[in-house]
């Protein structure tokens, strides 16, 4: 149904945009091991995105590439956190922490979706995201407890990511319509909070007591994005759009 496609689009766009961000690090990471690790994570996210987008595309008789390359900014459905800039390594890790804990809890439950395709994608994805979560948690510890500078940067990175957290838990009427197909984010908020709190506590960090953005602003699921997404899409889509109808 269109509703399921819409839901798959949200999850797919989250992964696609994050993969696009993380891909930047390949050839620029602080050490070779991280070129490999961030590359792996980007690849996993891109893989999940392709599964979700292909599934969504079916509902409109399109392909994953139609969706990735030929939608305008306001047709993308990622939450705004996913499109935030990489910043320094700490900011990327802060974003990774929130994102991977969120995706882990979500996919874990989505394995039981009454929609078998979504369930199957989630079952594969959850194992990979488990590693992403571990990778982010380990780095939060290293950076928070490493040097004075790394601690300062880790805190700054968390501060810049935190205002985009609340939007992830927005729960609009789509969830009610989808019933057991989807995983309403409220169902795992407590587990999400607990995991984050545990990591931050081990890292001897305060839970960033930052003002959350008002709901009005977190409109990624409605196609309302931050100023960053337009630039990302211009770059991502440029070649495909220069050659309409071409295959690659």
């Amino acid at each position, binding site marked *: 149904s269109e509703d399921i496609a819409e839901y798959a689009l949200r999850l797919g766009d989250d992964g696609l945009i994050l993969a696009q961000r993380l891909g930047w690090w390949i050839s620029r990471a602080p050490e070779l091991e991280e070129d490999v690790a961030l590359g792996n994570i980007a690849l996993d996210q891109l*893989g999940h995105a392709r599964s979700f*987008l292909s599934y969504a595309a079916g509902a409109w008789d399109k392909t994953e590439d139609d969706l990735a390359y030929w939608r305008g900014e306001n047709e993308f459905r990622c939450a705004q956190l996913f499109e935030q800039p990489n910043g320094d390594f700490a900011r990327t890790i802060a974003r990774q922490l929130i994102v991977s804990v969120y995706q882990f809890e979500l996919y874990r439950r989505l394995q039981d979706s009454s929609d078998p395709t979504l369930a199957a994608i989630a079952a594969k994805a959850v194992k990979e995201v488990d590693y992403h979560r571990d990778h982010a948690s380990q780095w939060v510890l290293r*950076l928070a407890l490493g040097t004075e500078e*790394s601690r300062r940067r880790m805190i700054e990175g968390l501060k810049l990511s935190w205002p985009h957290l609340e939007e992830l838990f927005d729960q609009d009427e789509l969830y009610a319509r989808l019933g057991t197909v989807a995983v309403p984010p409220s169902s795992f908020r407590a587990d999400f909070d607990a995991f984050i709190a545990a990591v931050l506590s081990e890292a001897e960090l305060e839970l960033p007591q930052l003002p959350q953005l008002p709901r009005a602003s977190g409109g990624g699921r409605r196609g309302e994005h931050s100023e960053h997404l337009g630039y990302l899409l211009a770059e991502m889509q440029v070649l495909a759009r220069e050659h309409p109808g071409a295959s*690659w």
Partner: protein
Amino acid sequence: DAGQAAFDRIIAADSRIEPRDWMPAAYRKTLVRQISQHAHSEIVGMQPEANWISRAPSLKRKAILMAKVQDEAGHGLYLYSAAETLGTPRQQLTEDLIAGKARYSSIFNYPTRSWADVGAIGWLVDGAAICNQVPLCRASYGPYGRAMVRICKEESFHQRQGFEILLELAQGTPEQKQMAQDAVNRWYAPALMMFGPPDDDSPNSKQSMAWNIKRFSNDELRQRFVGMMVEQVEVLGLTLPDDQVRFDEESQKWEHGPLDWDEFKEVLAGRGPCNAQRLERRREAHEDGAWVREAAAAYALRQRNAQEQNEEVA
């Protein structure tokens, strides 16, 4: 002496030298230079292809390209490890690289101007690399040979992917086909020059061959490569930018047109289109990442201390 004799025996038997074996200082030095140049080439070589990750024109191609560039980081890791078995730490090699003191394959100093360049690099550059590297799987130094085995397996995958990119373009729109031909035109000669200078201008080759590091001469490998490309370019429906390519019945070898070795030397000397850019980017990544590496080291130390204290208490 005994060490030299044992070494000579191993070489004569075409068997393998391992890290703990005695080896001549010159052998060690040659290997460190060659392995580290190879490692640096993998690392610097990530850049021209990474240049198209964000703009790859389909998600499938984006995934393949990401995986490929990431593989190159992995190859760099194997190779630095192999160099480390010879007593040269990765950090030192990295610092030589960003200081501009170390060499890497000169071909990565050319820009990737279009998506087709990703295909051309896969097909021609990885193709040439494989020709060079397959014999290195039998290199006399064990860790190097074993690293090459892993690397070659992945490289032939990469070459095939490059070929597929070009094939898709060559069978696509006229603009796509033009893009593919243009890329082949630009990468052909630099790929041929990857095998190094002509045999009569390659002073170190002889010693490397005696040591069973190198197995074939530069020109032999280059000729073999040209032959392969001639066959494959036909399948692509493209042409090589060299009207002097021919099979010489007498020598039973492929011949090719003259190569611009002056340009090769210019680029090698740092005056290629992207030398400055490639080194700057590597330097930037290294310097921007310093605080991260320091944090990781400090954290590891802290963990070790905590563990030791725990052990003492227990």
